[in-house]
């Protein structure tokens, strides 16, 4: 219990918001409202899972927002050229994985700090996309693209279902598969991991590729919700994902973090905007509150660590 104090407190904060809403604005708890809130949280959850792996590995990736936009546009173009849905999904994920691999080569292969590499790729991909598409939306999407050709409600449930299955698999893999433990090992102590027979470079590379692939999937699951694809999508996704991971108890210095804590972080952060609307407060406070939650979460971490030392 004490071990999970950090994660549980985030979960309780989320439950507190739900409780407040239950008393003050019970109309929040309509199925359609909840489904749309969860659907909004899906891309952040998927990206935050990838980001957790990256941060646990003691790296960071701030290029995923731009990757997200490129993947959505590629998915949209593939779909509008008439190719079947599985091919569209494959293209989106492959496109993300390729951009992740590019980051991975530079970080793991050449040893350039990940924050600089992904800063550069963030700018490059975003501006390349703007140059190429000139802000044009991808329209003329086939019937079977939006909501996978299902009704809206079934489509929403499908999207949330995919995200939950993926989350459960990743949480299991990170805890019980050797590949998952390698990530913790490399993030805790690279040299010790190397002496234990792990290839830190390969693990780091793989983590970036996975981050890209997950971003591609997140882009696909967002693109199918709308009648056309926005080339400006995904702006600020990297910060939302990092914020969710950090609020969820992932240590930025690597080696520590649980995915279910991150899920609680995602739920907490994505419940702020609807909560402000339903409590009839100014929605413009969302960003300030998000920042405040991040600072409070890390300040609590720091406070506990400093007190323990004394």
């Amino acid at each position, binding site marked *: 219990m004490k071990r999970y104090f950090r994660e549980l407190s985030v979960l309780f904060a989320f439950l507190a918001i739900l409780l407040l809403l239950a008393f003050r604005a019970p109309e929040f708890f309509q199925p359609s409202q909840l489904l749309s809130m969860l659907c909004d949280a899906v891309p952040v959850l998927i990206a935050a899972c990838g980001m957790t792996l990256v941060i646990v590995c003691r790296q960071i990736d701030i290029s995923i927002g731009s990757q997200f936009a490129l993947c959505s546009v590629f998915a949209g173009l593939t779909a509008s050229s008439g190719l079947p849905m599985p091919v569209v999904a494959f293209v989106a994920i492959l496109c993300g994985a390729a951009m992740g691999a590019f980051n991975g080569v530079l970080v793991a292969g*050449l040893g350039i700090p990940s924050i600089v590499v992904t800063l550069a790729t963030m700018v490059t991909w975003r501006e390349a996309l703007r140059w190429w598409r000139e802000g044009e939306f991808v329209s003329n999407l086939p019937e079977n693209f939006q909501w996978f050709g299902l009704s809206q409600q079934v489509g929403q449930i499908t999207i949330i279902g995919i995200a939950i299955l993926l989350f459960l698999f990743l949480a299991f893999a990170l805890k019980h598969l050797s590949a998952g433990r390698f990530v913790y090992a490399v993030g805790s102590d690279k040299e010790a991991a190397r002496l234990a027979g792990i290839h830190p470079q390969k693990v780091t590379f793989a983590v970036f590729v996975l981050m890209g692939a997950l971003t591609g999937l997140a882009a696909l699951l967002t693109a199918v919700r709308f009648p056309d694809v926005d080339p400006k999508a995904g702006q600020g996704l990297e910060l939302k994902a*990092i914020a969710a991971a*950090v609020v969820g108890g992932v240590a930025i210095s690597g080696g520590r973090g649980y995915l279910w804590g991150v899920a609680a972080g995602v739920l907490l952060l994505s419940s702020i905007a609807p909560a402000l609307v339903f409590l009839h407060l100014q929605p413009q406070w969302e960003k*300030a509150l998000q*920042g405040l939650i991040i*600072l409070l979460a890390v300040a609590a971490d720091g406070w506990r660590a400093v007190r323990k030392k004394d």
Partner: protein
Amino acid sequence: MTNHSPTDWKAFFLRFETLLIAVLLAEIIIFSRTAENFVTTGNGLEIIRLSVELGLLALVMTPIILTGGIDLSVGSLLGLCAISFGKLWRDAGLPPVLAAILTLLIGAAAGGLNALLITRLKLPPLIVTLGSFSLFRGLAEAITRGVDNFTGFPPSFLFLGQGYFFGVIPAQLPILVVAAIGFWLLVHRTTFGRSFRAIGFSPEGTRYAGIPVDHRVGLVYVLSGVMAALAALIYVARVGQAKADAGTGYELLAITAVVLGGTSIFGGIGTVHGTLLGLAVLAVLKNGLTLSDMPSELAGILTGVLLLSVLAGEALAQSISRRRKQSPPTPTISTSPKPQT
């Protein structure tokens, strides 16, 4: 991590700065052919005029990164300070001078918040300033409710951003020159500034050497807040209005200029003149592309490519020189660099 002797680094930096100057010259030669009005005194001063705000942020980002830290909140703080200035002047009815002084104090207080969290609670600067990045921009949006903006400032204030001395020298140019000289002297010619690098190499070692590490680190973040506020004042005066989205993305541009200028993101290594060169490369690139009627997106793409190729070149050169030495791999015990932030 490999150990380089001081002379190694010196030689390396000589080469690094030569490389930057070569890039800058190449830009100037190319743009003088593609753009008609590129090589004029007026355009040269215009380039500087437009990059003063970014320059101030990049200048203060240099000592921050030297200490091994980072400040992602400067762009958001620029927005918050711009809004605060507008609010103090229009709604509180203060004279511009008093509003400007209060804005600088707000900047210092905001920087102080970062400093407090980083030094007292031992939190990684990346995460603290990521949180305040959200908080400051969010406050700016909340104060203006996302729509309000401030215009109609008195001409005496607008002179700061739009005026010219003797009809040619932009009014904000002296501020940048003074800041550049000040930061250069601080980082390179004072024991105070020299300690930033020591902290970047080893915070613990520096503390044992009797230097008040927390105090020094905290001070750079406060200074960063003040510079962001100053940049906000110049920005508002130049553009003539204050909106909540002022300075969006400036933190990344400032970091790009610093890293392009040869400062190691891990801290300990870097120079102020390198940062100024990096800034010049970025500013000339943007201006030249605009004057050559090239798409503005190209500036971003080329910046990213330039940053990556400079760093990849550096990494490759290092691994080649390491191989050439052919020293047997020595077992290293806990010499892993400090936690990456």
